[in-house]
């Protein structure tokens, strides 16, 4: 008996009991839809996170004060001196650029408008390191640093909040913590990121921040040092060089660094492992749903075998061998779950798309990704479930004794 004939016959039989077939499929539909939607959202979330991470810059490392665990007490703060030491191309050949920053929250105002923004004191090196550019005006230069100039670069959100527009702002004067600052440029739009909105930010010269806005003690303290590696392959080497230089300067024992070096790759890994855990978790729930769906199929197939005992007896009387009956019922059960799986894929896709549209409309750019491998996985997995849970009922049908099956009422 060829397989197409078996498929057509199975479809006829499933079609003969539409309500029952539909309800039986539902378990598989829900399970597969959950799997597909979760995989799509997980992949989409990962893409979004990776996108925003790579938007921070390329081949970046971040140096913070404080140890990786709480065993390090009273860490020595990072200083300008630390940042300058890292710039030494002899002891740190794989470091491309170093950008120390001071960062804090600050009140800005223009006319009657006021707003709370993230204020960052930066050096000229900050712009290439962070891939920052201006849409108009200029960036912060060495002269601004030397002169502790009262100049400011605005993020687009700040410009929107204070002025209501984004162009023609160069030359305006705003107040930062009550002190007048001249606007010298507007930053390109960055979009949302891991560290909150990067557009609600103003940049001023490092020396100005140090002297007038974000006073630290000791006075030469810096909050974070951004380090750019010469290329992607040197990130690990760079990490080692930073550790060596700083532990020497801070005179810390091996393994007891009072600072933390964190690379972009570390952040990517952390983000991936979080989305990975989420995907596994939801996948587990989906697997339970598929298991329940499979048991539903088994249950219905057992009912079907009992109902059709006479038919099975007749088929055997007409010369059907065990394997013919086996194939007939396995085809039915796997078609049941395959069709359920296909509907589930479509439904999961739709759910993913809807969630994507909703989150994009609410401000987070998010593109769910249904991969070919997810579709193949779901298709194969649902068919296998049908086969697996169909084996017992089909075997029962195939082993019916024809004489008794024919007599069954």
């Amino acid at each position, binding site marked *: 008996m060829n397989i197409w004939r078996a498929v057509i016959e199975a479809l*006829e039989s499933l079609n003969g009991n539409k309500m029952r077939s539909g309800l039986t499929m539902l378990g598989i539909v829900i399970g597969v839809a959950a799997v597909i939607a979760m995989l799509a959202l997980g992949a989409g979330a990962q893409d979004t996170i990776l996108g925003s991470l790579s938007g921070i810059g390329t081949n970046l490392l971040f140096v913070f004060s404080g140890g990786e665990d709480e065993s390090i007490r009273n860490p020595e703060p990072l200083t300008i001196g630390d940042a300058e030491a890292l710039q030494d191309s002899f002891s740190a050949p794989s470091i491309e650029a170093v950008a120390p920053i001071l960062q804090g929250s600050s009140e800005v105002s223009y006319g009657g408008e006021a707003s709370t923004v993230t204020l960052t004191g930066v050096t000229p090196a900050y712009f290439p390191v962070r891939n920052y550019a201006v849409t108009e005006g200029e960036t912060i230069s060495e002269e601004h640093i030397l002169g502790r100039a009262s100049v400011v670069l605005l993020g687009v959100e700040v410009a929107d909040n204070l002025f209501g527009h984004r162009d023609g702002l160069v030359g305006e004067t705003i107040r930062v913590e009550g002190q007048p600052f001249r606007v010298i440029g507007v930053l390109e739009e960055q979009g949302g990121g891991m560290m909150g909105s990067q557009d609600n930010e103003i940049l001023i010269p490092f020396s100005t921040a140090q002297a007038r806005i974000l006073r630290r003690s000791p006075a030469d303290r810096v909050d974070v040092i951004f380090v750019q590696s010469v290329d992607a392959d040197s990130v690990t080497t760079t990490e080692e060089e930073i550790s060596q230089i700083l532990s020497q300067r801070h005179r810390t024992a091996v393994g007891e660094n009072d600072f933390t070096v964190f690379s972009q790759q570390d952040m990517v890994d952390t983000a991936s492992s979080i989305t990975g855990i989420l995907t596994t978790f939801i996948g587990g729930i989906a697997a339970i749903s598929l298991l329940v769906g499979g048991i539903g199929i088994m249950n219905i197939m057992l009912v079907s075998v009992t109902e059709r005992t006479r*038919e099975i007896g*007749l088929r055997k009387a007409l*010369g059907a061998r065990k394997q013919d009956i086996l194939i007939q019922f396995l085809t039915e059960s796997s078609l049941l779950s395959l069709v359920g799986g296909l509907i589930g894929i479509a439904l999961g896709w739709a759910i993913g798309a809807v969630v994507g549209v909703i989150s994009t409309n609410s401000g987070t750019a998010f593109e769910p990704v249904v991969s070919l491998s997810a579709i193949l996985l779901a298709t194969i997995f649902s068919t296998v479930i049908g086969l697996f849970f169909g084996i017992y009922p089909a075997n029962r049908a195939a082993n019916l004794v*024809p004489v008794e099956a*024919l007599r069954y009422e």
Partner: protein
Amino acid sequence: MDAPVIITRNLTKVYKMGEMEVHALRGVSLEIKRGEVVAIMGPSGSGKSTLMNTLGCLDQPSGGEYILDGETVADLNDDQLADIRNRKVGFVFQSFNLLARSTALSNVELPLRYSGTTSGRKEKARLALESVGLGDRIDHRPAELSGGQQQRVAIARALVNEPAILMADEPTGNLDSKVGQEIMDLLLNLNKESGTTLIIITHDPKVAAQAQRTIRLHDGQIREEVPA
């Protein structure tokens, strides 16, 4: 003439019902010639159904010898029995036993599918339906056919593989006497034309009277054989 199509020697069949053993057949020996029309009669519990099941290869005897169309049936496994049923036995049941969802043509085609016939199945099935006078009903489903027509479809299905014997179990039992007689006429006609051996299990003396020979069973044994 040539060898009998059915030879049994001392057939026995024992069923175990819990502790009890039921002897359904107690040594049945018979021969049926090719092309013969034989009726098997007997009260219920006489072993008539068991004999039919055994002769139709639906069940294996507990003891004795059975040769169908030159093949020894004892010791065959389930799949080999299925194969013999498919090639050598056609069944006609009292309650027709058609597949309700399938058309007349698909019903008749079914044995051809199990025999692995690949080409010309539809044509063969159509010819079989024509030979029972249903050439114009091939796309009807059983529910759209009368009882007599359904039994004709069942007969076409039994004949489509050109079996050596046709086993009819109370073929007229679910039909009124007029339609029943039409079915009997059809069976006898087919026997005359194609020479298919016809074995009819029946309660009805009027049906048995149309056979060439009647075998009466009682208590698992042949009581008497009555030639017509």
